């Protein structure tokens, strides 16, 4: 029997919501789970607090379970020492909720920069100074080493974060990230919000994944309420999700080439991306399709002429994209930059449970559309591309191949679009404390959404875990031994979300 199932059965079961269970476990079981994860048995899908407890969501295929550690003394055993992917999440739990990971090897604050004017805003919520706390970066030692601090304001049009490079000449010996600059307090804003308002916030956790986040949130709420969106809504949600994936992959492929000083592909990808956004506007009335997915369905059916616009788009990209791929493949100066640059080892990817192109370029095939899966993907045919090289080039190729799959998915979706309503009549009121979980595949990887609802139809608690949590730390590993000038290229090939991570 799977260890996860055993652990769940030994624990005290609470709320078996549709598709997953949650059980309260003791200290020993909590540590035992971390040992299983550390030994490669399963991966962590999320680790978060709710003020009273911490929850650890684990995937041991095909099972997903949530293990809960109650924290009446406001403490829980840290697992970050055994299992480093948990480190930053534990630090974030401490910053926000004041629940202390006991014996954590890294006790530095993570999201709390000492600027909020409060401590533990979702816990004790005590007034505090707001003049900024010092941060102890890891020391760099030895005479040839020098430090290059970068950010939070970067040179390009990108999100803010701080990177500290220790370099030996041109070679990067260590990168240390400091994030949290765009922390907006999303979990607190969600508390007590109506479903409608909360869905809008969920769609703004990471703007480039607005569709995927709105979908994850809606599915989690639907699971909590025990309802299902109408079939046509499921299919149109998938149309939006695939459009979002295509648009982002085009943007990324272009931007990676641009960072290797090859502007031609960037220019052409920019044109194709614009066509996708215009088609999205024609079909759904918003270029990024924000606020179109709501709990219970979608806010409006396709606009007139939508199908034509989508067919034109599929043809247009289908015709012009292969030329760009060929150009990428045949340009030696470009390959020289991307091949064997920023290699990420498959073992690390498995350990961190990294998803998306970061995971798939290093051998990890997980795709939430396949397993655990959600409608309508079981009715569609598509492959999940996987490569082993783990370099910038492999991350480009995964995007190229996924884009082709998404074009095919779009065509299949349009050909078989069911008829009917796109939104449930008013949603039922939740049973007080009803919980729901959803895992959705965004363009960047799997997004986890967990909600607990109040009886009056508002959100009691929600946690949205961005794929970047398990990708950012790996960028630190992938860049080691590369030259400083290749950092933008590596960083772009990861394209982690700052906003999604900082919450």
């Amino acid at each position, binding site marked *: 029997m799977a260890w996860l199932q055993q652990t769940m059965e030994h624990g005290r079961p609470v709320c078996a919501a549709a598709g997953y269970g949650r059980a309260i476990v003791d200290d020993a079981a909590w540590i035992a789970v971390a040992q299983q994860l550390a030994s490669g048995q399963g991966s962590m899908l999320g680790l978060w607090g709710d003020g009273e407890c911490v929850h650890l969501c684990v995937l041991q295929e095909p099972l997903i379970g949530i293990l809960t550690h109650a924290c009446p003394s406001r403490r829980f055993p840290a697992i970050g020492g055994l299992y480093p992917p948990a480190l930053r999440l534990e630090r974030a739990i401490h910053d926000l909720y004041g629940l202390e990971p006991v014996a954590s090897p890294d006790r530095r604050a993570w999201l709390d*920069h000492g*600027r*909020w*004017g*409060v401590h533990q*805003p979702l816990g004790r919520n005590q007034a505090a100074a*707001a003049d*900024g706390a010092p941060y102890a970066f890891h020391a760099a030692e030895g005479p040839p080493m020098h430090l290059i601090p970068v950010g*939070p*304001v970067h*040179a*390009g*049009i*990108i*999100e*803010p974060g701080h990177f500290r490079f220790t370099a030996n000449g041109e070679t990067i010996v260590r990168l240390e990230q400091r994030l*949290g*600059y*765009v*922390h*907006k*307090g*999303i979990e*607190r*804003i969600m508390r007590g919000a109506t479903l409608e*308002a909360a869905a*809008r*916030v969920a769609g*703004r*956790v*990471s*703007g*480039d994944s*607005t569709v995927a986040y709105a979908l994850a949130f809606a599915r989690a709420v639907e699971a909590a309420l025990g309802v299902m969106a109408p079939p046509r809504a499921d299919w149109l949600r998938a149309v939006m999700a695939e459009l979002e994936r295509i648009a982002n992959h085009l*943007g990324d492929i272009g931007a990676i080439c641009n960072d290797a000083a090859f502007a*031609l592909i960037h*220019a*052409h990808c*920019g*044109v194709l*991306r*614009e066509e996708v*956004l215009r088609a999205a506007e024609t079909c759904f009335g918003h*270029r*990024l399709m*924000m606020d179109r997915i709501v709990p219970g369905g979608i806010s409006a059916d396709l606009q007139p002429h939508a199908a034509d616009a989508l067919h034109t788009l599929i043809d247009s990209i289908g015709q012009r994209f292969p*030329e*760009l791929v060929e*150009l990428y493949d*045949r*340009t030696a100066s470009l390959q020289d930059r991307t091949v064997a640059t920023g290699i990420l080892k498959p073992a690390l990817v498995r350990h961190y449970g990294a998803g998306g192109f970061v995971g798939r370029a290093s051998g990890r095939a997980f795709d939430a559309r396949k397993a655990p899966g959600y409608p309508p993907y079981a009715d569609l045919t598509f492959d999940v591309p996987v490569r082993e090289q783990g370099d910038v080039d492999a991350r480009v190729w995964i995007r190229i191949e996924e884009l082709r799959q998404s074009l095919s998915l779009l065509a299949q979706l349009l050909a078989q679009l069911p008829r009917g309503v796109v939104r449930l009549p008013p949603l039922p009121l939740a049973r007080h404390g009803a919980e729901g979980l959803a895992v959705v595949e965004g363009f960047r990887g799997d997004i986890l959404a967990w909600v607990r609802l109040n009886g009056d139809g508002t959100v009691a608690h929600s946690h949205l875990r961005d794929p970047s949590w398990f990708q950012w730390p790996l960028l630190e590993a992938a860049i080691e031994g590369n030259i400083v000038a290749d950092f933008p290229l590596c960083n772009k090939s990861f394209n982690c*979300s*700052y*906003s999604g991570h900082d919450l």
Partner: protein
Amino acid sequence: MRTLLLKSLLQAPLTEPAPTADDAELDRLAQSLRSAGHRRLGRSLAIREVDAGSCNGCELEIHALNNAFYDLERFGLRFVASPRHADVLLVTGPVTKNMREALERTWAATPDPKWVVAAGDCARGCGVFAGSYACVGSVAAVIPVDVAIAGCPPTPTALLKGLLALLECSDRSRA
């Protein structure tokens, strides 16, 4: 690559006609520029983008300004890498408390004369993040704002209108 280049040469350009600058914005700006004295920028503005807490949606549309359809550079508008080279700060996001100091410092590092454009509903009024313990609020709560562009995110056309308004005013004030 040669065929791709050749095709692009033979094709009509994709670039679309410029939108007209937003009238309301123009009037307000003219006011602000006159009071600010004589500004001699020519038809060229260097823009430094600062994400002060955005969800990154605004950044996507700002990026789009550089694509062939909008081709920002034809107006003499271009993005620069350092605030020290900038005439305009284009700021997005509700200003988070963790980014406040960085924004203030970026503004201080920008030489006079300088303008600030707040892009997006968050930058204009904090958007859905209003009231959060982690956000200061709109950009205007931290540094003086000359133009605010609505939208979540503002479309590239809306961004272009706002920026063109700035450009036309700097022209008018020069005349």
